[in-house]
């Protein structure tokens, strides 16, 4: 059965993460995506690490299910080809910079086209024309203040959060604009429009809870305020691995029994013992950072799995802190099918993260086509346009 975006035709003129992620999601949901690359290819083909004899795993993932062609903006006939493709498309996903003026929204004059432009800093304002990147926008949106130590070198979030947040917003904007479009004549839709998203704007939107917290708080504490200026949080270290836990649900005798079983009798003599009981642990605890050494002294005698089992049995919550290795072999990840096999052109199988939605009426196919080789669908796409 076709996915929810079956029949939607998308042209992508984008590189790296934000644009390609947007179009990947549309393709995963059933849209027909044609990716236009420059003669040198999408820059992310050459990002590290490189797979044996192939492109970067990030490129392979973010460009699955797409058809690919190469066009050179120094050639007028190639620009014309792009114009023709866009004129027939429902959606354009474009990186704003480096695009020939003829391919701007204003010049295309395509009545039914939803034209999504992605930029670093947004369409208005003094930085509208500045290119941007993850580290530049993570810094400018204050995101790097939630990592590292004050006064020490900045720390980025290691995932491409600005780009993927922007992509998630772009997908929303595209779908909303397609919904608002007039499709009463399916062959000639009208009411297309230009939509714009940016990395900077998306990062700021994601920190909204913090902005409200900073508006006029009754008091300064809790993980929306004091946590973000606290020192780095590495979780609660057990003998082998760190965990996260919370005692918020523990009632009655549960706490004393938990202390007994963890062999933490000594803590009862500690001046902070009452606080240990009421403040609990985890990011929400007001004195969590001060109390952490007490817990870690107790946990040092157990493996993470054991502490999780003990805390849970006493009515608390505890979770493992996975790295990608432990994540990818976790039974829950397997049960929900979060990692899928994608057969590559050379016959090898690559493992990738699955799309995040389950549509019961219009299910998304989990059988993916590999990312296109550079110019792989040149003839097929250009002959039919």
């Amino acid at each position: 059965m076709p996915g929810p975006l079956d029949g939607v035709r998308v042209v992508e003129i984008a590189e790296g993460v934000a644009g390609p992620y947007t179009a990947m999601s549309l393709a995963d949901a059933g849209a027909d995506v044609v990716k236009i690359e420059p003669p040198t290819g999408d820059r992310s083909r050459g990002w590290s690490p490189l797979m044996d004899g192939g492109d970067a795993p990030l490129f392979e993932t973010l460009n699955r299910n797409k058809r690919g062609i190469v066009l050179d903006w120094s050639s007028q006939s190639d620009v014309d080809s792009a114009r023709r493709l866009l004129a027939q498309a429902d959606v354009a996903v474009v990186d704003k910079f480096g695009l020939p003026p003829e391919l701007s929204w204003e010049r295309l004059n395509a009545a039914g086209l939803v034209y999504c432009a992605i930029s670093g800093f947004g369409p208005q304002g003094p930085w509208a024309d500045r290119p941007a990147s993850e580290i530049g926008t993570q810094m400018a949106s204050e995101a790097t203040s939630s990592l590292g130590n004050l006064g020490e070198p900045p720390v980025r979030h290691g995932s491409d959060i600005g780009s993927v947040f922007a992509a998630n917003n772009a997908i929303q904007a595209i779908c909303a604009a397609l919904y608002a479009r007039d499709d009463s004549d399916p062959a000639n839709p009208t009411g297309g429009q230009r939509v714009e998203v940016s990395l900077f704007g998306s990062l700021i939107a994601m920190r909204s809870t913090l902005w409200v917290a900073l508006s006029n708080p009754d008091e300064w504490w809790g993980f929306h305020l004091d946590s973000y200026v606290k020192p780095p949080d590495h979780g609660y270290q057990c003998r082998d691995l760190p965990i996260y836990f919370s005692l918020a649900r523990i009632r009655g005798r549960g706490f004393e029994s938990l202390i007994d079983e963890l062999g933490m009798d000594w803590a009862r003599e500690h001046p902070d013992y009452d606080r240990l009981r009421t403040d609990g642990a985890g990011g929400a605890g007001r004195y969590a950072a001060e109390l952490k050494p007490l817990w870690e002294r107790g946990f040092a005698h157990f493996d993470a799995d054991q502490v999780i089992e003990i805390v849970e049995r006493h009515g608390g919550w505890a979770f493992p802190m996975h790295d990608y290795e432990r994540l990818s072999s976790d039974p829950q990840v397997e049960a929900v099918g979060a990692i899928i096999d994608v057969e590559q052109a050379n016959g090898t199988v690559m493992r990738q993260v699955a799309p995040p939605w389950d549509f019961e009426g219009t299910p998304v196919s989990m059988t993916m086509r590999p990312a296109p080789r550079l110019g792989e669908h040149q003839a097929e796409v250009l002959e039919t346009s």
Partner: protein
Amino acid sequence: MPGPLDGVRVFDLTLWMVGPWASTQLGALGADVIHIEQPAVDPRTLGAGVPPTIDGTSIGYMTWNQNKRGLFLDLKSPTDRQTAYELLQTCDVFLINMRPGAAERMGVGYEQVKAVNPDIIYTAITGWGEVGPMRDRPGADVQAQYFTGFWSVSGAEGGRPEVYRHMAQIDATTGNVAAQAVLMGLLARKRTGEGQRIHVGMLRAGMALQSGRIAEYLSSGELHQPQGSAAFATAPDQAFQCQWGDWIGVSVSSEDEWRRFAAVMRESEAEAEGINDLATDPRWNTNHDRVARRSELAAILQAGFVQRPRHYWMLRLSAAGIPCGYPISFETLQHHAQAIENQYLREVETSAWGKVWTGGAPWEFSDTPARWFGACLPGEHTGEILDELAARKATTDEPAPVVGD
């Protein structure tokens, strides 16, 4: 001018953050979002009581329930449940984020809602999924950050990985993904005429956010080790300290950018070993080479950056089309033209808590603009919404909904 979802109505049976964030987005896009709360709700439990508060109400509730109308309904009461079904007849979207089985117990499982309104886009959000050993476990942002490895790729160079200390990114990502799924469901209905049930979980949404990094691990078998401000896939792509101690973030992600970057460094006339030969030195031939010897390259560049003020580098790098940026704090962002002119950051009036700062709509639409307004009080629009329902009942032939248990 109405927003793109003008005319769409959402039955918003959501709590805490993930679900409410999704419906906040739909409301901003122009949908009429009706947010349901229990009539006797204790104000201290709103937004899960997440601190801090403003005038005693959690800022969580205030952030996550913008762009909505508030309705009191007690789904345990037969009268209110009937009202819920009448309201559901007028809705396009049903949104819930509770553990599997909770909706059915409240009389609003998919089969029950479908009996009232077969065209509904019914969207259920869970923490860990609807199957598997963890399906019944509680799920919130903190747990999802830790479980999905979101914490494992950040940290000071050479140090242990650390948690992103603003705990809302997986919640909000899942909310965004759920809003996306609702929109795709509405689009499919536009084509097929049929409603459907959709599910989105935090585990898969949180992993999808990390698609690139996870694919890198799955292909290489190598775990990413924290490396401060530096990117894993590209180099140079990190923060450098400029004259007077200011930090600048600079990213070079293509060979063409590398050549332009090398020219800026050479033209700066900064004196540092190797800084004039970046474009020709075979050590830096390709991105792959530069990533492999990232620290060595960074040391050369750092020696150059520290010789000129940040303003110099921002000017020269921007002119050369090299992406760059620098840290900006909230107090500055509040007055920063780039944040304000795009309305990314804005101050809105709320029903009961005065003016608050908030992120605004992250999209700009040329023809159907998004909107943004402050949070409603729980149940604030109960009278108005019930009046609308009564007026509709008086003018429609549609029979009153009947739902078996």
